[in-house]
């Protein structure tokens, strides 16, 4: 049963990847400029080089062969060169991607830690003052444009109070060697004598971007937990459990929360693409050196190989996360497996 389900999923994901690579592949032809430049990423090509390159990229053969060559190169890690730096695109992506993942995952964790308890509280005490207050604040936070919210926070905490830095991942004077690309693990893995100061500084840099980025998913989490909890609490099995003499806390935990969180898990997958989009905006505002900032720079520079590679990576990530949450959802929910 489960195997069948996984097979179906794998087939679907393979199909999506094919569609994605076809799109990315076609961009080389749709972007302005010479196809050969767009595929190779070389800004200037000597006439004597040209013939060899055309053969290498199979540009003299059919489109199908070119596409197969493209997929082969993608899998082999050969993503062409960036127009602006003439360095391999894949290496640049690997250098910037961890920063985005780091920021997004802290924001996601923050939204869990805050969103689920607050949502539960708002559901259980739906009619109390605090319950209404949470719902009200959630609505405001949900509607606030993120760039404006970020600027407000910078104005308050950085410029007026002088408490937090405005940009970057860490004070640039801290010389942290890059091992994983994730800032906090890099600090812990390094052998610098000022680890705790560096950690503190990195956290201070992380705080504002993480709050800004967490705002939207937290509100979504609160609203979903609240609505789904309210729906579950209406179910007759909850009343039965209460009638059987279980305490309120027991009922909430064993029967309420578990059932209420199922749709929330699914939401994570669905909200993930929004999260990545918001992460890009956050990165630009806070000069966070992640893939969002890199991709926007590439677009501004008309750096087609980089745009192509960046889009491929970001969309693959979104799809993979979507699939994972779907699978997680299914594992937890026997009902979904049958569907």
């Amino acid at each position, binding site marked *: 049963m489960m195997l069948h389900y996984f097979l179906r999923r794998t087939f679907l994901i393979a199909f999506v990847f094919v569609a994605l690579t076809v799109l990315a592949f076609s961009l080389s032809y749709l972007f302005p400029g010479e196809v050969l430049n767009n595929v190779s990423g070389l800004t200037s090509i000597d006439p004597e080089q040209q013939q060899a390159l055309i053969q290498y990229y199979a540009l003299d053969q059919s489109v199908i062969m070119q596409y197969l060559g493209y997929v082969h190169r993608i899998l082999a890690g050969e993503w062409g060169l960036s127009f602006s730096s003439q360095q391999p695109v894949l290496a640049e992506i690997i250098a910037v991607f961890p920063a985005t993942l780091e920021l997004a995952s802290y924001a996601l964790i923050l939204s869990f830690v805050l969103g689920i308890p607050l949502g539960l509280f708002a559901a259980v005490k739906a009619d109390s003052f605090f319950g209404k207050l949470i719902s009200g604040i959630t609505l405001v936070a949900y509607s606030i444009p993120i760039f404006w919210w970020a600027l407000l926070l910078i104005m308050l905490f950085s410029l007026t109070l*002088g*408490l937090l830095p405005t940009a*970057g991942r860490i004070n640039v004077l801290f010389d942290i060697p890059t091992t994983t690309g994730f800032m906090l693990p890099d600090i812990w893995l390094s052998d610098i004598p000022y680890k705790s100061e560096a950690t503190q500084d990195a956290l201070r840099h992380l*705080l504002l971007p993480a709050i800004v980025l967490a705002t939207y998913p937290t509100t979504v989490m609160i609203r979903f937990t609240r609505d789904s909890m309210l729906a579950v609490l209406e179910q007759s099995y909850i009343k039965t459990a209460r009638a059987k003499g279980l305490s309120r806390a027991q009922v909430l935990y064993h029967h309420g929360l578990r059932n209420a969180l199922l749709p929330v898990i699914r939401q994570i997958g669905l909200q993930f693409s929004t999260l990545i989009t918001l992460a890009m905006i956050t990165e630009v505002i806070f000069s966070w*050196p992640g893939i969002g900032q890199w991709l926007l720079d590439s677009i501004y520079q008309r750096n087609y190989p980089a745009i192509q590679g960046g889009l491929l990576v970001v969309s693959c990530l979104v799809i993979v996360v979507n699939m994972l949450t779907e699978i997680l959802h299914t594992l937890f929910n026997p009902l979904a497996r049958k569907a």
Partner: protein
Amino acid sequence: MIKALLSLMVPCGSVLILSACQPDIPETIQQGMVYCSEGSPESFNPQRVTSGTTIDAISQQLYDRLLDIDPASGELLPALATQWRLSDDGKTYWFTLRPDVQFHHTAFFSPSRTLNAKDVTFTFNRITQTDHPYHATGGAVYPYFQSVDWGSLVKAVVAENSNTVRFELSRPDSSFLSNLATDFAAILSAEYAEQLLQQNQPELLDQRPIGTGPFFFKEYKKNQFIRYYRHPEYWRGKVELTQLVFDLVPDNAKRMAKLLTHECDVVAYPRNAELKLIAERPDVEVQSQISMNVGFWAFNTQKPPFDNVLVRKALAYAINKDAILDAVYFGYADKAKTLLPPTSWAFYHDLPEQQYDPIKAQELLAQAGYPKGFSMDIWAMPVQRLYNPNALKMAELMQADLAKIGVKASIVSFEWNSFRRKLSEFEHDSVLIGWAADNADPDNFFRPLLSCSAAESGSNRANWCDPNFDNLINQALLTADIKQRRSFYLTAQLYLDEQMPLVSIAHSKRFQAKSVKITGVTINPYGGISMAAARKSL
């Protein structure tokens, strides 16, 4: 929870007095300085660039030159060369090198010897000898040297012994020493170049630099920062800063914000509009310096209709410079009459000023055969430079001015590096850009900007090659007599006024904002900024 957050935000009670509460922080951080720069460097070898952003970041920090320029008087001072002499025919120069000058000792290179004549010959032969193993590395591009026609001027650079170098010129050139003192003439290490050749990675010479300057290169993260450490054996004596980081912040508003939050110690190019505001803060100091520069509007003179001198003159008449000076420079600049700033000794004081006269402009356009005007592009550079703090705004003002004479202008802009690349391929109609002098010689304005060799190398933004003009500026170099030179330059300025390959707009003052804790960072009127004498008080 709140307490934990607060303690995170306010370590030891106050963030403003950082040093007081961080006894464990090593000296490399306490005595480090962050300079917030407006853009990324294109290369780490000054020979390969002309952009002021790159020169500021690399030239004075990593390298030394044979000669220096006294910022106050513009006179030449000994640097790596302790003395020099000239032959009677003016065609041979001898330089005696300073003894015991150490090159950088880094993770990727350990020098086995001090500076000697080989390093100097390597540095300059790379530029001129086409069969030199390094000549073609990275595309044989030496824009400054090509623009001053170095290749035809310098016949040979010879090491007479380990500390004497002889330069043989093909003709006398009174700007030769000035050129050697520019930021572009940095002395590289021949030993390092040899090591890279053996490792088969010659391209690293321009990416992982080794020099003799006050700081050595540690790391460069593209679009993020450049990290330098103090060179412990610097020949000029002890450098106070232990670490120097160039934080790359292209956004003007972000750079200002980082100054106010103390993330930056020194900020390049504060916005003129905000100068008054930040000068009022007790923790920030604004410095200004009269600078040798010019902001101009260059026409691509090979492209019709800009090949017609009447059209160029018409466009010059159509521009209201006073409005631009107010709105773009906020009054912190002088209106330009010609390329040269009024502080230059060759400046033509009696040159008539270009008037704003739209009616005259329309007449000229009609004479040129465009009574109804035409459409054109104005390329506006995307970064703030000294000579033009806001090219986009300037372009918008000019767009409105041009509309009055029936010329429809569209504004074009790209990211800075692409912008410069496309410019040197002459894809533009006209461009708002400028020039900051590298030395006090007037030749440094005319030759790199408007000579035929500059048109070939791509730094002549007007793509203007006029033998008459080239003849004038060449004649001026053949004599060392200042009166004679001056008369040639006056004629050249008059000729430019007639031909109008570009419209000079303004000579701006240069500003920088810094934390009051930093001292010793002064703006050099000629070329790049130097951090060698900077120090930070705690």
